[in-house]
């Protein structure tokens, strides 16, 4: 089997939280997540707020130091001593194009900063050319170089964020909700830009978002997270067409469809209750408190991912008949 670009095994990210004067408890933001990403592939990561999807992205880049598990990039284990080298190959695009760009820096400085840090350009002229090339790559032009971030619209700012990530010629980019803050018409432009860049440069993405439509459009495979764990992982069309985990099923059925006739005839599974606090997780399967199929086994034992259809893994004791919504 060919080597994966990125191999994550049993990743854990626990944060200590003070719950009282002398008491500390562990918040298990990510609790045993494993997946792989191949060169040029997109893995989508979906889930609701607080499920740990952003934490996964940040732990991969060691913006948080993982508390457990292993992360291998091209077969090499990433740790504190060699992360600096990997940063040239792994980059990130953040959600909020308003707060992730320094308002006191020009576009030239923002995009060029990484070039300086990694000493990628010998001469001033070379650096200039590289910055202009990057801006053109993401659909901006050289006139934009001297401007500040506040002079741009949301969509253009996100393009600056992408240019910054591309500056070091990475092979892998964590896209953390990169289009959530944008209007629909602009969202489509940025999604297309991500796809074009992937084709041209052979990039691999971890595409994190809460919008299943967007993730489905971008990804080859999709992983669904709930309270720090992956509950279902499969090829994109398989997840949408044949979801088997009760959580994925309700998630898909809850997405409003922009089609009135379909909306009227559709059967929606509305989940009872809310996501439990990650400080106070249920025993066994963490979804069981909201699951209508929960049994005693779900409270006693934690289900692991099992392959139930080709390439389709589900962590559930009572997987449901696949159905589309």
């Amino acid at each position, binding site marked *: 089997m060919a080597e994966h670009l990125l191999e994550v095994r049993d990743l854990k990210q626990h944060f200590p939280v003070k719950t009282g004067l002398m008491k500390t408890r562990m918040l298990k933001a990510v609790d045993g997540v494993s997946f792989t990403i191949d060169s040029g592939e997109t893995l989508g990561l979906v889930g609701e707020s607080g499920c740990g999807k952003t934490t996964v992205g940040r732990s991969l880049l060691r913006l948080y130091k993982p508390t457990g598990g292993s992360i291998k990039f091209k077969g090499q284990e990433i740790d504190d001593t060699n992360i600096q080298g990997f940063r040239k190959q792994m980059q990130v695009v953040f959600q909020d194009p308003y707060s992730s760009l320094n308002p006191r820096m020009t576009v030239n400085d923002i995009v060029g900063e990484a070039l300086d840090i990694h000493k990628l350009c010998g001469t001033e002229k070379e650096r200039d050319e590289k910055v202009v090339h990057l801006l053109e790559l993401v659909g901006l032009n050289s006139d934009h170089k001297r401007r500040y971030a506040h002079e741009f619209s949301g969509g253009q700012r996100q393009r600056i964020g992408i240019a910054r990530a591309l500056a070091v010629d990475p092979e892998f980019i964590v896209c953390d909700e990169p289009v959530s803050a944008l209007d629909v018409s602009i969202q489509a*432009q940025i999604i*297309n830009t991500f796809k074009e860049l992937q084709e041209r440069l052979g990039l691999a993405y971890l595409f994190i978002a809460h919008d299943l439509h967007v993730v489905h459009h971008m990804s080859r495979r999709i992983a669904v997270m709930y309270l720090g764990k992956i509950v279902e992982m499969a090829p994109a069309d398989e997840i949408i067409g044949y979801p088997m985990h009760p959580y994925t099923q309700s998630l*898909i059925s809850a997405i409003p469809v922009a089609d009135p006739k379909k909306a009227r005839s559709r059967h929606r599974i509305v*989940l009872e209750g809310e996501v439990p606090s990650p400080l106070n997780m249920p025993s066994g399967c963490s979804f069981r408190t909201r699951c209508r199929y929960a049994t005693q086994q779900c409270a006693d034992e934690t289900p692991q991912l099992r392959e139930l259809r080709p390439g389709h893994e589900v962590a559930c004791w009572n997987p449901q008949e696949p159905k589309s919504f």
Partner: protein
Amino acid sequence: MAQTLLQVKNLHTIFPTDSGEVRAVNGINFSLARGKVLGIVGESGSGKSVTAYSILRILDNPGRISEGSILFEDEDIVTLPPGKMRQIRGARISIIFQDPMTSLNPVYTVENQLTEAIRLHTDRNRAQARERALEMLQLVGVNEPRKRLKQYPYQLSGGMRQRVMIAMALACEPDILIADEPTTALDVTIQAQILELMQELKDKLGMSIIMITHDLGVIAEMCDEIIVMYAGRVCERGTADEIFYNPRHEYTKGLLRSIPKLDYGKEKLTPIGGSPVDLLNMPRGCAFAARCDSAMKVCLTQQPEEIAINKDHMASCWLNVRDGGEGGQANG
């Protein structure tokens, strides 16, 4: 035909600023029938929230209504004295804001905030108001309502806060509920719960809803009629089916094309090119012309009139005029 409850005629709302006058709402017309759900869609800055704030007359300074009328039953809201407006606001027309995190007062308990509206608009005493508050919390599906009454907003989750907001808005049984992006800040499974709740309450209490959102999915699920806004104007309005299956304005068509769909292939999305219009620098003709692939010469110079496509459907686009004005492509 259902009874018309609210009629907005030629509404203009402007914000004078140092760099010029921003025409946030620029001559819009629509009406709302009793018991119906009207959706207003548009991008940020299209004027959908300002329309709602104009109806309630809660515009931020220096915004003001410069022209037009808003008939609620037979009274014109625009010219109502402030005292009378206060009797309508919160009692007969109420609003749920987008962000449940910031629209509740953090230093008052849920009970305090709920009973304030009830005591202001009805003659219930403290104990009766408290009973009513409890009843409302149960109605909107807040668990352990007695305990919640004593809690502060920070102790509640986002979905719970939005339920409290809805309880507050509905406590006086309004005729019209304005929901300004009520679920945008919530997760999809919680969004589904809130939308279901709103639909249920609408049927139970017989009110009308004005649903403001940029999410075409939410619109499709909830609304009977739809208004599409762009740069302060209505591009198109009509029944949900007409707008979704027979769009007659290029902007609406673009919007519908630009959303990724689950059941289609993954071919490239068709975004609307360009960026939203600068409200300080509005073009002479159709505001959308600069981003429109089918723009003609006439679009650049003349504002299109609203044309009836059929009895359920109005659109403001020159392409619907049979002769197409002077004809000829403008944008190549």
